[in-house]
């Protein structure tokens, strides 16, 4: 009922500017990744560097990409682990 009254007075529950902002946010994540090819490569290299101090990974079959849904973007990394490094402590 309240919704109906709001609609009668021309007030949508979400302002169109919030819709615009959210759509822009998502599309720009996509644009910024796709327009700079070095971006994903750089990210991948840094991830390998960090993870390699903790475990042996298979760099050749590793996959890093972005998954887009209607209202979110996720970074998906599939990194096959060959072996764990023994005695690697966090606080070194």
């Amino acid at each position, binding site marked *: 009922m309240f919704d109906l009254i709001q609609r009668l007075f021309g007030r949508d529950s979400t*302002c*169109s*500017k*919030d819709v*615009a*902002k959210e*759509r*822009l*946010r998502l*599309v*720009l994540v996509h*644009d*910024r990744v796709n*327009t*700079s090819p070095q971006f994903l490569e750089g990210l991948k290299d840094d991830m390998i560097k960090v993870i390699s101090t903790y475990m042996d990974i298979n760099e050749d079959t590793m996959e890093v990409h972005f998954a887009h849904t209607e209202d979110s973007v996720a970074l998906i990394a599939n990194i096959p682990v060959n072996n764990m490094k023994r005695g690697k402590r966090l606080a070194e």
Partner: protein
Amino acid sequence: MGDVIVITSGKGGVGKTTTTANIGTGFALMGKKVVLIDADIGLRNLDVVMGLENRIVYDLVDVVEGNCRLKQALIRDKRYDSLYLLPAAQTRDKNAVNPEQMKQLCTELAQDFDIVIIDCPAGIEQGFKNAISGASQAIIVTTPEVSAVRDADRIIGLLESEGKHNPKLIINRIRPNMVKKGDMMDIDDIIEILAIDLLGIIPDDDYIIISTNRGEPAVANPVSAASTAYKNIVRRLTGENVPLMKIEANDGFFSRLKKVFNF
């Protein structure tokens, strides 16, 4: 050496040419020696916005190809003695010049002028590359619409990759009544998304259309809101600290009255 500023946007129709004309005229009003370069070869318009379309003899391509001397192609403004226009060629295309030639041209002009302003064509191809090559500063014009903001973001990235850092943003055609209703992105929304410095905001103003009809940049008008906004931008570019103008929704009779009498 003068400053070389490029006005760019990515998207067409957001007000690059109008902004170039008004900022340029604004500097001339302050007594600076200014030259405006229309880099939109094949689709020139800065000449008509400035009201100088009947005075063109030579153009940018003529200069680059050596058909005339640089001084011969510069058109002096009708009203301001220290303001000049270097028009684009209308019968050629963007490939008629290259970035190296533009760079050289800008360097030469910066020796004689305090301010060189380049009106960049829409798009990200050759024309854009030419227009930005000689610039030391970039101003990005956008409007509060998703398409224009998205393209502005792309331009920021491209400028960055060309080594042009810290571009400044102008948000054009803000409609206070729509912002108030939540139907138009406001200044903070856009700055948050693009994460660059704001140079100024221009309210949507009918007077811009009227002044363009006449070929007289709006900035010289003492009462229009857009004119004040452009004057503020010019002052900020000279290093002055000018607060953003208040853009208020004017729906009542009194606010309309206020606008008429400008207080």
